[in-house]
């Protein structure tokens, strides 16, 4: 037989005006299991709380109901009071007779009857309450950052500066991402390399950052505070510790004519290479697909010329397990390709623009390489087909973006701005050239952004044409652009020397695979989903994983860096405590009953349900059951409502508790 104490609050007159609190006390005092029922003017006041504490001690109460305001107001207050009196806080419940009763009903009799009902079913519930211990999870104070673009670099530096260890994993041989490819950056036109390289060097030199380039995430397990991440360090064929970065190997490698992807294939590189001169680390990697030695066994020049003996053809991929407590995903974006649709792509290509087969039709990133002082042309804008200086350049915005017929309906957010930038860079380099821009809208809502665009129009004399282009075709050495100016209402034809397409920002190819490894969700375009568009823009729904940069959606550098710092701040907030404490409202599986159907796993929005193998003493598999990871479970209870055999229960909301309430109605 339980001993429950019921405390009914007057809330000044807020409750007692319509609810006959004394009667409620009288009636509830007679309920089975109720040891004492009192009413009091202000339960939340110090004397009120003391009343409760005293009663717990005096009457040896094993459960408490406070009939007062909404639990959203004072549940914490009374649970703390109960804890202070030596009672498990989760044995204290509130009955809401203010917001749900006295304030919304006028008839005193009805309101009193309702208040009695509310107290009654709450008492029944408390009888079935179980003592719960808050869950604490230890935190490994090391962070993993995936992707070494500006987002990953910023997040890694912020976390490392706060004194925590960071593991930064980058897929390419060097960090830098797309920003390293840019020439100058809007809205201030500072040189990308100049502001980027110092940060890259900081990463390399930071004592708290462990940098794995030429590496991939192989597997992720665990949960917030306790992830185990397996990193695959791909064989570089160069010993990073021995290599001094002298570059002799690259100079001597006879295999020099390989398309340089970093330069958008405008230039070439050797088989042993760093993607660009300022690469971090400045350690080359052998491109085994193109190296003569790996293909025919014949060469070996680099090994001969390398003074420190850093070349190691026999190097193997290495798997390294890193324990971390938080993960920042910063894997960035890819650019939409106008070529014919590959079988596995959801996006159509641009047949009307020649499917990318016209040599002087390039994308914005290629233009960045042409304009970059360290690019393949040394910063001279020369067109790919014949290396001539283009005098008429046509830019086309929204290529692939905002085109649902191609499969993408979103706006890529950055291309209005970088196109304006391109017209300026072009004008600065080719004074007698003319830039034309076909556009639908100029989307420039950022600080100093619209001014920037207007400058391109007014001072740099770019001709903006409000309309789209139907078709591009080669005519002699020109590219004919068939467009329209919808403001004038006529067709416009321009014989261009070069056409630059502002192609859509799209999610990384394979972004979904990384998401599946991490257990985070992504939208229909494969951009990673934040937990809440406005209020949790850097958190994933999966606890302990945060997002930074263009992997979440198209973003420019200022937004990327802000989000990266925000993600770092979230990681630091997590690391500020030694242990993670959370409400123990989590689901638990009764392994004996569980049939292992995993219906719960299918519905769990948090991915908290795992498979667990039950084995006998000899290690033979008896069955597979569900296991709810308490670190991950959000406490929604969907699994319990779904489980056909009622084998999973949500603490604090067990079937028993709820049925008891319904029975008492």
């Amino acid at each position, binding site marked *: 037989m339980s001993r429950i104490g019921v405390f009914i609050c007057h809330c000044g007159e807020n409750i007692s005006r319509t609810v006959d609190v004394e009667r409620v006390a009288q009636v509830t005092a007679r309920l089975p299991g109720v040891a004492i029922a009192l009413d009091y003017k202000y339960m939340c006041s110090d004397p009120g709380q003391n009343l409760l504490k005293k009663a717990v001690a005096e009457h040896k109460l094993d459960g408490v109901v406070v009939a007062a305001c909404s639990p959203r107001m004072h549940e914490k207050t009374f649970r703390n009071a109960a804890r202070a009196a030596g009672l498990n806080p989760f044995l204290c419940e509130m009955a*809401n007779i203010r917001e*749900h009763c006295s304030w919304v*009903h006028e008839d005193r009799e009805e*309101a009193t009857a309702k208040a009695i009902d509310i107290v009654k079913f709450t008492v029944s519930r408390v009888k079935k309450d179980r003592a719960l211990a808050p869950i604490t999870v230890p935190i490994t104070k090391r962070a993993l950052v995936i992707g070494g673009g500006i987002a990953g670099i910023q997040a890694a530096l912020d976390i490392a500066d706060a004194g925590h260890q960071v593991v930064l994993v980058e897929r390419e041989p060097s960090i830098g991402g797309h920003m390293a490819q840019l020439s100058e950056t809007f809205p201030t036109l500072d040189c990308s390399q100049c502001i980027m390289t110092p940060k890259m060097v900081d990463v390399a030199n930071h004592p708290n950052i462990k940098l794995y380039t030429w590496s991939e995430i192989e597997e992720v397990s665990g949960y917030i505070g306790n992830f185990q991440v397996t990193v695959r360090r791909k064989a570089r064929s160069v010993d990073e510790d021995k290599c001094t970065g002298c570059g002799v190997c690259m100079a001597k490698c006879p295999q020099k004519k390989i398309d340089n992807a970093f330069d958008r294939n405008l230039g070439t590189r050797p088989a042993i290479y760093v993607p660009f001169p300022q690469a971090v680390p400045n350690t080359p990697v052998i491109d085994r697909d193109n190296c003569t030695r790996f293909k025919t066994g014949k060469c070996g020049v680099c090994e001969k010329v390398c003074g420190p003996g850093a070349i190691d053809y026999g190097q193997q991929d290495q798997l390294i397990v890193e324990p971390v407590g938080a993960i920042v995903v910063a894997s960035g974006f890819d650019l939409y390709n106008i070529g014919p649709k590959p079988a596995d792509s959801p996006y159509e290509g641009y047949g009307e623009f020649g499917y990318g087969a016209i040599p002087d039709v390039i994308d914005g990133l290629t233009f960045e390489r042409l304009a970059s002082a360290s690019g393949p042309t040394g910063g001279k804008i020369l067109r790919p087909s014949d290396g001539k200086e283009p005098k008429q350049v046509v830019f086309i915005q929204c290529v692939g973006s905002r085109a649902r017929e191609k499969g993408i309906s979103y706006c890529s957010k950055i291309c209005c701005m970088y196109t304006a930038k391109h017209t300026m860079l072009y004008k600065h380099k080719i004074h007698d050239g003319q830039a034309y821009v076909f556009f639908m809208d100029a989307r420039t809502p950022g600080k100093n952004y619209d001014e920037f665009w207007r400058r391109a129009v007014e001072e740099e004399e770019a001709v903006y044409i409000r309309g789209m282009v139907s078709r591009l075709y080669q005519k002699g050495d020109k590219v004919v652009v068939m467009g329209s100016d919808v403001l004038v209402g006529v067709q416009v034809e321009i014989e261009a020397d070069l056409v630059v397409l502002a192609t859509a920002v799209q999610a990384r190819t394979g972004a979904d695979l990384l998401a599946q490894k991490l257990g985070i969700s992504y939208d229909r375009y494969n951009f990673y989903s934040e937990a809440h568009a406005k209020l949790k823009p850097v958190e994933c729904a999966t606890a302990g994983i945060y997002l930074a940069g263009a992997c979440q959606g198209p973003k420019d550098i200022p937004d990327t860096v802000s989000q990266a710092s925000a993600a770092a701040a979230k990681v630091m907030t997590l690391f500020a405590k030694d242990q993670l404490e959370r409400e123990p409202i989590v689901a638990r599986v009764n392994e004996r009953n569980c049939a292992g159907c995993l219906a719960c796993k299918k519905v769990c*929005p948090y991915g908290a349900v795992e498979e667990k193998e039950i084995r006998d003493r000899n290690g033979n598999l008896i069955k597979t059951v569900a296991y709810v990871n308490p670190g991950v479970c959000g406490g929604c209870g969907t699994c319990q*409502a779904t489980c056909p055999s*009622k084998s999973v229960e949500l603490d604090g909301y067990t079937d028993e508790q709820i049925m008891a309430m319904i029975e008492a109605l």
Partner: protein
Amino acid sequence: MKHDFEPKIVAFVCTWCTYAGADLAGTSRMQYPANVRVLKFPCTGRIDPVFILKAFQKGADGVLVSGCHPGDCHYMAGNFHARRRFAAFRKLLEFVGVDLARLEFSWVSAAEGGKWVEVVTDLTERIRTMGPLAEFKELETEEHWSGRLETAELKEAYNNI
């Protein structure tokens, strides 16, 4: 105004949206019929159809299930699963002979105190005109609504989840 028949309405609501919306109706001192008893759940996803049957068994004349608007679920997708589950459950309810008009599903957000009042008032009025739920109380003794997969209907309902 007094009525001959005061129905008993049980509301199953989620903490984050509808419970807070009902709180808001309170803080705004809106008025509505006193017939409703509110049971709080973390999420509509936690609401097992069995609870609804149980409530009808225990004398409820009407049941309201209310949670966050689609897409606003605090737990991201809990209410989505709930909706799919309830769709299957309606069939079952029909089978046992409960008029579906006694069961109301709605979305009330934390900002919709007024909507809460409207929903509760409308449902109370509706049930008042329908009269008490007599048929079903006879089933009270039958305890096989415990959620076990014993009847074909339950099985089907569950398979549809």
